[in-house]
């Protein structure tokens, strides 16, 4: 710290006291604490990574390089290049049977994360309750709180394959409920929802006049029935803000290209925030994404097939070890129960790291219903997964002997 800032701090008050209480009061993420712990260990096999192990397909990288050579380096229009929005519109229509007007109903964002932030900021009036089925992606609740909303967790259970049920949702709805955030296929459980699963949820959304933010970033990574977008359920199109992107299915995490679609009034409001904060998504990333939609669907399918193979390996592996493991139908995570070992999620994950050199994320960091589980990503090679399962097997054997 330099002299000026020391003097400032000494003579006044702690710097942190200047922070907005909304930010100050957000607890630091459990995943971050675990991240620090992993950082100090060596020779680890990690099942903790929430991103593909594939590199963005070459032709997409090449399209980006070529665009740079031609000097395509300026801002794009705020909502994204017209070509990319057009391609997204066609893709969603063909793949998931939802039709959005590329001119008024789509914004290309800086990853799916920005899209979720835009949606919440556009919708939340301080005091609004935001319903979040848990265990879930760790960012929904903090972003809600930063926006002045009140996150309300809805616990989901392995016996229901971690699906959201209408009963559980209705039990948490109050007059202050405004938004329901959905993430199916789910990070961290791999749960998916069918059309029949969605119908009673849609009824409640209608009945209680809710807006839905449907995070469908893992839509393509679906290994059972075809993914059903919540927006495609009758009557839900106008109530749904669909969020997706290229990170997972097209192996483009670092490019930060996502998108969001919805009713023109909602999209117009989100575009206001987007244009004053980030202006537009990176132009070169938009070029690569466009190339992916035009010529990369085969590559995408090849990656999905590889994930599916690893998924089978992991589920069977955990069951052979003697840990209960529901069958995930989407994303690239398995969420085995470690309750039979008698250890908490934190204890299990920490000991697994130090004693067996395998990093996985304790389930409790994902909210209600996550305690007693472990999130293991299979976005890594078959060789690494086989070795990790072997180590986990020996570790569980040892723990059970202790008990």
């Amino acid at each position, binding site marked *: 710290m330099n002299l000026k800032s020391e003097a400032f701090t000494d003579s006044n008050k702690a710097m942190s006291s200047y922070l907005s209480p909304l930010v100050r009061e957000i607890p630091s993420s459990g995943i971050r604490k675990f991240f620090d712990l992993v950082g100090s260990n060596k020779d680890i096999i990690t099942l903790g*990574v929430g991103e593909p192990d594939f590199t963005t397909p070459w032709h997409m990288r090449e399209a980006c390089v070529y665009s740079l050579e031609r000097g395509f380096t300026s801002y794009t229009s705020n909502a994204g290049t017209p070509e990319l929005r057009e391609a997204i519109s066609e893709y969603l229509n063909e793949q998931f049977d939802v039709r959005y007007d590329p001119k008024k109903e789509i914004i290309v964002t800086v990853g799916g994360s920005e899209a979720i932030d835009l949606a919440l900021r556009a919708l939340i009036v301080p005091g609004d309750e935001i319903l979040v089925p848990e265990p879930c992606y760790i960012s929904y609740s903090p972003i809600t709180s930063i926006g002045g909303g009140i996150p309300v967790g809805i616990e989901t259970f392995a016996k229901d394959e971690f699906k959201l049920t209408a009963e559980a949702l209705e039990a948490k709805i109050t007059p202050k409920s405004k938004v329901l955030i959905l993430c199916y296929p789910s990070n961290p459980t791999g749960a998916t929802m069918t059309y029949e699963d969605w119908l009673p949820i849609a009824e409640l959304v209608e009945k209680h006049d809710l807006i839905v933010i449907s995070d469908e970033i893992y839509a393509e990574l679906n290994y059972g029935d075809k993914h059903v977008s919540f927006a495609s359920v009758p009557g839900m199109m106008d109530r749904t803000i669909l969020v997706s992107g290229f990170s997972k299915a097209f192996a483009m995490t670092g490019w930060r290209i996502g998108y969001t679609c919805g009713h023109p009034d909602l999209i117009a409001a989100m575009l206001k925030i987007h244009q004053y904060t980030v202006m537009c998504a990176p132009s070169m990333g938009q070029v690569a994404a466009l190339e992916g939609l035009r010529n990369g669907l085969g590559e995408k399918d090849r990656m999905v097939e590889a994930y599916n193979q690893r998924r089978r390996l992991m589920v069977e592996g955990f069951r052979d070890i003697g840990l209960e493991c529901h069958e995930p139908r989407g994303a690239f995570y398995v969420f085995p129960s470690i309750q039979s070992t008698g250890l908490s999620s934190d204890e299990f994950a920490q000991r697994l790291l130090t004693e067996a050199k395998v990093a996985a994320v304790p389930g409790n960091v994902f909210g209600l219903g996550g305690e007693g589980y472990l999130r293991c990503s299979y976005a890594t090679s*078959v060789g690494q997964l*086989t070795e990790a399962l072997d180590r986990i097997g020996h570790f569980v054997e040892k723990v059970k002997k202790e008990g």
Partner: protein
Amino acid sequence: MTELDDLKLKVLELLKEDARRTPTLLATLLGVDEQDVCKSIKELEDQHVIVKYAAVVNWDKVDDEKVTALIEVQITPERGRGFEGIAERIYLYPQVKSVYLMSGAYDLLVEVEGRNLREVANFVSEKLSPIDSVLSTKTNFTLKKYKQDGIIFEDHQEDNRLMISP
């Protein structure tokens, strides 16, 4: 030409990535019975689709001096047999590692391996060139191998992803 079913194609792809994968592992990855995998592998071996299980070796890493040359060979095809007879005559030499019939400026591409330059040169001058149908040879010595069978030799790409991410 053998028409392969979907399972056999997938088995081939997985074994091409790593030939040491067991039928048990392949069955798990593909979500099928182990017996079906074993049957597929047996048939692929019998049909000579799977020819051999071998390691891809980067000899540059090994202190075992070897020289490889790719020799472009122009030949006169034989009446009735075309290029087959002459190709066979060439590929039966143990120092010949591969032979391809090519379109373009020459007819056969012959990969030859020897302990040193002289050994390869002797093979060309004493064995290959004197064959009646051989019109000309052009020997290209390999200086470094970067990629073979889709495997990049110097590609020790670290996993740069965060160890834990949301």
